[in-house]
């Protein structure tokens, strides 16, 4: 009796904590309550529409030890799961002593239900979630994808991964043998899951779809293999469309052979934009008061800067000509002259270079990350005049868009401020969020302090850019609208030296009625092909005309 009491005392008093812990381990289960990943919306005439959704799918597996009727399982899985079933199910279901063999992946809820109803011993189901892209390839580089580990890759999926992911909850409770949580016990914990944020993009799916189609159609005509377009609202900095070709289907990202297709070149590929930068040079000069559209300079097709001679692409427009003509005819000599006039009138002095740098880098924000919500944005580069490389020759080249590396997004954002009255809006692809009650909460645009140029300079620059388009490229435009733009052709580096045989064609312009309503920047290229700005003008024209109808703009007159 004494021994019995002593043993009881030992177990109940001395080893109390140990047995309580053992009992808890057996009875109390800690379950993770998975948070749903936030969905991604685009806009459709201002209303959010789902672009990326979550779908519940199941992984069907067999426990060969528990399997009683292998033939029945094989038949049922093949019949019901169809294309999602793996090969050689017959062998897998009898592959003992394994306890886990996947028979089908991404099985729909209805398929899983049908399989469950058959009550086949040894057949199990695991619920998972996958991302669905009902619009297929649309805006693929903007969206990115979610990898097998549930982590966002590229685009907004990576850029806003933290916000989209949400926070898993926890349920710690005594459970029965079927893992049903019971309220008995004093240490139950229930932390609800916090679902990820539902992000609404500023991308309009109709504009995006048309942009992609126009880019594809025109690229085919001119033989380009790579192309990009960005459409922005210059009055808010919101990106309405961002397209790149080649593209891919995010639902089939594992089949992509060339990883470059994942990149959104509009933000990840800084390049020499070429003559479209002349609009920036002209705007700077107008704002500094060193030129007017009618200011004249003597053009002789070439101009010397230190030990180099700069030539025009368009020859023969010589003599005393206006700055408007310099912009319209895209004369490099005119832009170098402006750079000189920002200095002492004859040389691109340090002060001239400092002024150009202040405008290009500090005001128009070329060569620095914009902070857009997409992954992989590159800063590019604008050489400072305070470095050895920032000499007069460099800045003479920069005046017509060479010797610098901004991204298309930076150029389009800076250009938006040139045509909108000098206000620089931080570019964004986010229009707001859809809250848990289903309402659309809009995000305000961010207007950066300081501005870029005066309203007067902006008005004049816009007039000059409109005239530049009207002179050569306005034939296909809808009449009665305010449309302007500038071509750009940039040589590319082949074996470390510039070549004229492989050039990138760019066009940058705006359109609107009483005020600019959209800014479009287009770029196209192909290996071994000399594509110029004029080659990509039809892409701009096609999108511009469509935008006028889509935005229901009223013609003047």
């Amino acid at each position, binding site marked *: 009796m004494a021994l019995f009491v002593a043993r009881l005392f030992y177990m109940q008093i001395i080893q109390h904590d140990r047995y309580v812990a053992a009992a808890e381990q057996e009875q109390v289960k800690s379950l993770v309550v998975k948070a749903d990943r936030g969905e991604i919306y685009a806009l459709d005439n201002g209303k959010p*529409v*789902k672009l990326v*959704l*979550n*779908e*519940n799918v199941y992984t069907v597996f067999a426990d060969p030890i528990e399997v009683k009727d292998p033939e029945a399982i094989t038949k049922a899985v093949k019949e019901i799961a169809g294309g999602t079933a793996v090969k050689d199910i017959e062998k897998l279901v009898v592959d003992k002593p394994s306890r886990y063999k996947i028979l089908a992946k991404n099985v*729909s*809820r*209805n398929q899983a239900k049908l399989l469950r109803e058959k009550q086949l011993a040894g057949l199990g189901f695991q619920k998972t979630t996958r991302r*669905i892209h*009902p*619009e*297929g390839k*649309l805006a693929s580089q903007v969206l990115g994808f979610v990898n097998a580990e549930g982590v966002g890759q590229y685009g907004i999926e990576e850029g806003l991964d933290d916000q989209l992911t949400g926070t898993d909850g926890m349920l710690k409770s005594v459970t029965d043998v079927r893992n*049903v*949580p*019971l*309220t*008995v016990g004093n240490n139950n914990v229930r932390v609800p899951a916090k679902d990820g944020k539902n992000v609404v993009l500023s991308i309009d*799916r*109709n504009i995006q*779809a048309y942009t992609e189609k126009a880019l594809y159609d025109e690229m085919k005509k001119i033989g380009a293999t790579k192309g990009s377009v960005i459409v922005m609202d210059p009055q808010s900095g919101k990106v309405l469309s961002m397209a790149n070709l080649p593209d891919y289907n995010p639902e089939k990202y594992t089949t992509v052979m060339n990883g470059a297709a994942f990149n959104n070149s509009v933000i990840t590929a800084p390049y020499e934009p070429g003559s479209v930068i002349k609009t920036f040079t002209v705007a700077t000069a107008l704002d500094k008061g060193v030129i007017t559209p009618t200011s004249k300079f003597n053009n002789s097709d070439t101009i010397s800067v230190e030990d180099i001679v700069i030539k025009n692409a368009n020859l023969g427009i010589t003599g005393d000509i206006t700055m408007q003509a310099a912009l319209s005819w895209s004369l490099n000599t005119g832009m170098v002259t402006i750079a000189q006039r920002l200095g002492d009138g004859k040389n691109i002095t340090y002060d001239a270079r400092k002024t150009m740098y202040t405008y290009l880098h500090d005001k128009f924000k070329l060569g620095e990350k914009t902070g857009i919500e997409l992954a992989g944005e590159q800063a590019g580069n604008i050489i400072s005049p305070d470095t050895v490389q920032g000499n007069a020759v460099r800045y003479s080249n920069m005046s017509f868009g060479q010797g610098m590396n901004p991204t298309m997004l930076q150029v389009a954002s800076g250009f938006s401020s040139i045509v909108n009255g000098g206000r620089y809006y931080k570019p964004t692809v986010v229009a707001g969020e859809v809250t848990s009650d289903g309402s659309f909460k809009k995000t305000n645009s961010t207007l950066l302090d300081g501005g870029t140029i005066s309203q007067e300079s902006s008005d004049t620059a816009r007039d000059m850019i409109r005239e530049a388009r009207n002179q050569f490229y306005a034939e296909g435009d809808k009449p009665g609208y305010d449309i302007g733009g500038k071509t750009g052709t940039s040589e590319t580096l082949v074996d470390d030296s510039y070549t004229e045989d492989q050039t990138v064609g760019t066009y940058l312009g705006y359109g609107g009625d009483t005020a600019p309503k959209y800014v479009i920047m287009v770029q196209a290229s192909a290996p071994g092909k000399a594509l110029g700005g004029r080659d990509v003008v039809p892409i701009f024209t096609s999108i511009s005309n469509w935008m006028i*109808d889509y935005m229901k703009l*009223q*013609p003047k007159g």
Partner: protein
Amino acid sequence: MTYQRSTTYNRRSGSMRRNQNSVAYSSAVKLGPVTHTVLVALMITVLGLIYLTQATKATAYDYEAQGIDDKIAEMQSEKTDLEVENARLTALEAVQDSAVAKSMEAPKETNNLR
């Protein structure tokens, strides 16, 4: 005139103390120690049964709650499936490929109202 105390009074007051019953009744039923033990055991059993019924009731509610949770999850899953289906059916490509869209004509002329 003089007063005399009664004899009875004198007798009672002599033996009485504060808070002490002056009358005692003896029960006709006598409970022994075994009966007491049985009664205590019965009481413990009743209390145990009460606890057990309450705990079982709570557990029954747990199963009911779990059943409702499962139903909610099932309906949520169904809603998600329908949303996916809806998104697929209203996708631009699906709309463009629809018979209605194919039978539409592009406008020949666009006039703007002022």
